[in-house]
Each structure stands twice: as C-alpha cells, then as structure tokens.
C-alpha cells in the first residue's frame, strides 16, 4: 500500500485519462445521451482540459520540487496537513470519477456477469476503484495497462453488435 514518504513520481492526469477515456469512448454516443443527457458528450472535452491542466501543473511541480506528487508538493508548499487532505480529495475525486465512468460504461456487470442490478455493480466497482486508488500511481498505471491488454479486448468484444 501507499507510503507517502516513498511515493514514486506521479502522473495523476494520465491516470484519469487512462481511467476515463477507454470506458467513455467504448460507449456509443446514443448510450451517453440516454444515460446522462444530450450535453454529456461534451464531458470528454472537459476531461481533455483536465488532462492538459493537470499535466501543466505536474510540470510546474516537477520544475520546482523535483519528482514528487501533487499531494506531497502541496504539503511542502503550504502546510504539512495539506498532504493527507489532498490525498482524501484525490480519493473522493477518483471515487466520483470511477462511479461516473462505470455508470457511463454501462451495465457490464449486470449483462456480462449477470449481477442483475446495475446500481449494486456501480457501487461495488466504485468502492473497488477507490480501494485501488490507495496503491501508488505507478501500480495503477501498470494495472491500467494490463487491463487494457487483457480485459479491454473482451469488453469490446462483448459490446460488438454481432456478439
């Protein structure tokens, strides 16, 4: 699990990008529209803005404080207690983003795994994602990568019109 003092270099925006983009992109626009309204398709542009802003912030932090995370840097710049607070904020953000993407990603659990209740699936997987967020970012990046290689093809295959 995470050790604040030993945390390796972080790329939170990339994590968000990896988490959100494949799932949202995997859904047809019509599903997005049905799920969260017609304007929701513009969400993807917000994500891109977020990624750009996050990358810029990361670069600024790297330039001033070396290879440390946003959380650790905020603790160094402001107060020490800011670090755990930002970690909690990050977990909440991750939880919210995970919930939203799982909701957008459709009822994978209810259809593929026959859980029958999308709300439970969203809740379960959001909690799991939030727990996963406690691992260092390097682990999550590697995990995202392995999932993209092993699981994403199955996910797309499941959602092919012919399957």
């Amino acid at each position, binding site marked *: 699990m995470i050790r604040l003092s030993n945390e390796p270099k972080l790329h939170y925006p990339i994590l968000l990008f990896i988490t959100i983009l494949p799932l949202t992109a995997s859904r047809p626009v019509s599903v997005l529209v049905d799920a969260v309204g017609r304007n929701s398709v513009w969400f993807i542009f917000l994500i891109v803005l977020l990624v750009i802003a996050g990358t810029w912030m990361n670069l600024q932090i790297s330039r001033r404080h070396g290879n440390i995370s946003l959380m650790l840097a905020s603790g160094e710049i402001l107060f020490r207690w800011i670090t755990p607070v930002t970690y909690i904020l990050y977990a909440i953000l991750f939880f919210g983003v995970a919930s939203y993407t799982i909701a957008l990603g459709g009822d994978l659990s209810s259809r593929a795994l026959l859980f029958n209740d999308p709300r439970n699936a969203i809740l379960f997987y959001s909690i799991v994602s939030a727990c996963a967020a406690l691992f260092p970012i390097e682990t999550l990046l590697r995990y995202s990568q*392995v*999932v993209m290689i092993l699981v994403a093809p199955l996910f797309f295959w499941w959602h092919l019109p012919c399957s």
Partner: protein
Amino acid sequence: MGNPTDLTVHPLPPAKGTDPEAVLLYLSSITDASKIREWFLQPVLSALVHNQDISDVAELFVHHGFPVNGSTIEKKVSAIALQLYEGKCVLLVNGQQKAVAVDVSQWHDRSVTAPEIEHSIIGPRDAFVEDIAANVSMIRRRIRHENLIVESFEIGNKSRTQVNLVYMKGLVNHQVLEQLQQRLQATNLDVLLDTTQLADLIVNKGKSFNPFPLFQVTERPDKVVASIMEGRILLLVDTTPTGALFPATVTALYQTTDDYYFPALSGTFIRIVRYVGLLITLFLPGIYVSITSVNYDVLRIQFMLAVAASREGVPYPAYIEVLIMMTLLELINEATVRLPKVIGGTATIVGGLIIGASVAQSHLVGNIMIVITGAVAIGSFTVANYMIGVAWRICSYALALLAIPWGLNGIAIGSAFILLFLCHIKSLGVPYLSPLSTWQFKDFFKDMLFRLPLMLHAIRPSIYSQAAKGTKRLSLQEGEDTL
C-alpha cells in the same frame, strides 16, 4: 574449543618421552585422512624407516614438498580454531612464531545427479549439488569467458557459509547488483541453511506476507546460464543444491528449459498449456461455486441441468463441496510430497482414486466436482515453479471464498485485486509482471506469450537489465538476415 571428540592431535615425530618437534591438529570428521597421511605423516614415517634425522620437522616437510596451499596464522587458540572448523589442519612447530594451516578438507558431498525438481524431457542432466565449488564449475564449464564474475561473501555468524554472486559483467543490471551486494553485506544471520532463506531476506527483508516468490529457485545450470546471459544474477549458497535467480518475473517462472530445446511451435504450445493450467487452477473452483450458488443462468440450461443432476443427493451447498475437495486435494498433495517415494504412489492412488470415487458414490460431493478437482490438481502441477504454484492455489481459495456471496462479481473483484497486487510488487526494482505491465512489446510477444524461433529473438530481452538491451546473442551470417 570444548574438547571436541573428533579433534586429533599428532605429535611429530611420535613422542618417545621427549617433547615433540611439532604438533599436527585437525578435526578427523571433516578432513581427508589420505592427504594428511601423504603430506605430513608419510615424510616422518619414511624418515624413521630410513633412519634419517627427524629432529627438524620443518625442514623434513620442506624437503618432501610441503603442500603449497598452506597459509601462516597466529598461534592463538581462536585463530587456530577457525582454521580447524574450515577443514584445515594446523601445524605448530617448535621455535616458529606462526602456525601453518593447510587445507585438507573433505566435506561429505554427493556426486552430481539428474535434476529432481525441474525435470526436462531433453537437455542436460546435471543439477546443482551441495558443494558450491562444483556448482560454480558447472557454470564456468558453460561460460568460458572473462566477463563471468563470481563474487564471494560469507554469511552467518556461526555457520560462516560461503555465498557467491554470479553474473556477466556488461550484461548485468547494476541497480539489482548493488542492491544484492548491499543486502548481503547487511545480512546478519546466525546460521544460513538454505538459498531460499537468504533470498527471502534479500527481496522481502524477511517481513513480507507476499506469497509470490520474488526470486527464482533453480537447480539447473543450463537455466542459470541462459538467465545470466540475459543480465540476471545468480545467488549460490554453499551446502545448498539450488541457486536463486534475481530478478524474477512471472514470465521467468513460467519458462522451462524444454521450451527452448523443443521446436519453437512446440515450445509455444507447451507454454500455452502451462498458462491454461494456471487459469484452470485459479478460476475453476470459484467459477463452479458461482454458477452453482449465485449465477445459475450464466451457462446453458442443459449444462446447468447436468450440474444439478450431479449434485443430486449432496446435502450441502456447492462451496462446502469445493472446500472439502480442495482440502482433500491439498492433503493428498502434501502427503505425496512428504512421503518416501516408495509409498508416495500408494498415497496418490488411495487419495485420488479410492477416496475420490467413494465420496462421489456416497453423495458427499457431485461427480462434476471430482472432475473439477482433478483438473485443478493437474493444472497446478503444470507450473514450472512450485512456489508460485502454491501462491496461485492460495489465490484460488480466496476467489472461491469471494464467489460464495458475490458469484462472478466476487471473482472479478478478487481477480482485479490479485492483478493489482501483481502490478504492485517488484523483484529488486523490476516489475513482477513485466513485460506485460511494462509493455515491452517485443519481449512480450517474443518470449512471454510465445516462444519464437531463435532467429527471431536474436536480441536479448530488456526485461531484467537495460545493459542487456539490444545486445545480440546470435549473430547472423552475411546474407542470412531473416527479417
């Protein structure tokens, strides 16, 4: 020294009421009597037979070609004791300020035999033995090059066991090497018994509950040589017939020597069979629990009817059935490992056939569960490394437990965390799931999922060492370029 019973004291020449000129000390249990006789006793005896002057023992030994592997030591009990416990004999000569220690050790080693843990169908038949010098010689015989480095350490305050690090200069991962050297120097053990004990202290610092082995135990010199040539490092411990390779990845633990001695397609096929075995071991018990307890409608109705028919008369839920059979499987497995080979087969037959058939007939478990248990057992035995096989079985239990309340969702959640954990752990800085998690595309396809022909992976992988990246292990002839 506590007056050990095997301490032999030879006065030289044999005293006849006068003080001896010299005294020869050795521990008879760990020394070679023939060497002592030839180097020390024979000259004295010969001189006595020929009525020569034997008052000057030192000159007598020099005249007869004193063994050149001797070293001078202080005439102190502690210094002499240290030499005696290493199998040396110590010669104390009157008038000399220093004593002489000569190596006459004879440790009771066995001869080189065929591998007992890592069987192969073809390939070399020699395996490591307890003698570290013999093990190093097996490697040197295969790599006769100046870049093969053997570093020596001494671990254990009381055992003073010799430990060697073997690697190829120019190919080795220097970060891994430095970590190994530092941790070996920092290790403060009492007695070192086995390679795994030291390897665990190195990679886990002795305080991890991680079931996955972060080092690769091997007894095959050919595997060691292939690994060293990819930039990995071998840890050899005296008195242990196995070495530990660093860093270790899941890929490495699933590679066997047969993969490379067979044609590429056959090697790939065998490797895929092994991965299928892993999937069966890991998921089958959990899936059975899921489809019989939670997700009834996931499979075709005909199959579910067959499952229901096989469970007819079984008085408890499917997960109890799974737990019973898996526990029986573990018991049979453990009994087979622990029992002598003579009756090990009997245990397998009794456990596998008689108990298996009987529990099905008495409706303690369903017939399909017997099939699943057999498949899980065989799947777990296909793994090339026993340690990771045990780790997978532990994960399999965890998945089956998660499947009890949550069915396939539980398996998905559990699998996600197993995968996350595998992505998290590293073997001395090298990600455990590389090249999959590090996405070293070429290495992933060349030698992880498949085993491509040697011509197609003439370049060494960069999984273990960046220094080995891009170096060739096979040079093509002019005009022989394949791709």
